[in-house]
């Protein structure tokens, strides 16, 4: 039972354009969402997060949008750079009673081409 889904296993974008990575969740108890970036042979690196009381959070080139009614979030990267090429994981957790238990999606491999 996959509670966090990233339906696109891969995405290819040209340098300078916008990258949009999508994530859907099914558990209505989730109220905190995070995006992680992962390079090969390294651990996931925290990128950006959003709580369910917001619908948008921005940090430099990265913006996360949350649509609670649709149980959908997305990560926008603009402009995309070659160094952004990595696997991006969406993760979610309940803020109370969950013990900080993160549930991850299966990841989207982003390739930013020159």
């Amino acid at each position: 039972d996959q509670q966090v889904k990233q339906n696109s296993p891969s995405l290819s974008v040209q340098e300078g354009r916008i990258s949009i990575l999508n994530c859907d969740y099914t558990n209505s108890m989730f109220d905190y969402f995070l995006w992680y970036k992962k390079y090969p042979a390294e651990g996931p690196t925290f990128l950006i997060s959003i709580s369910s009381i917001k619908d948008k959070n921005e940090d430099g080139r990265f913006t996360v949008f949350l649509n609670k009614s649709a149980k959908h979030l997305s990560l926008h990267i603009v402009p995309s750079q070659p160094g952004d090429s990595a696997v991006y994981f969406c993760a979610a957790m309940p803020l109370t009673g969950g013990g900080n238990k993160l549930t991850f999606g299966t990841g989207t491999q982003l390739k930013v081409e020159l």
Partner: protein
Amino acid sequence: DTAVSQTPKYLVTQMGNDKSIKCEQNLGHDTMYWYKQDSKKFLKIMFSYNNKELIINETVPNRFSPKSPDKAHLNLHINSLELGDSAVYFCASSRSTGNTIYFGEGSWLTVV
């Protein structure tokens, strides 16, 4: 200066052996975790410790035993290794009052 460090990074061992993976964090966090990424790339939580106390145990076989000697360390001991234990194991930490979890670089375990 690595915030969450785990050793060894790579481990190849035979079925039936017992092995340990060590983890240390220097972030001053009081909660530590073990996650497993399997061959299908699913990242799933195994254990969570807060101030040396077990708070999450996700139906992991008894062959897996976490040990937390202090807040900064959470080691993972695996008995009687099986082929299906081959995976990448990630240690992580966070503040109990915070929601951002920081990961180590992973330990690639291969059981042959």
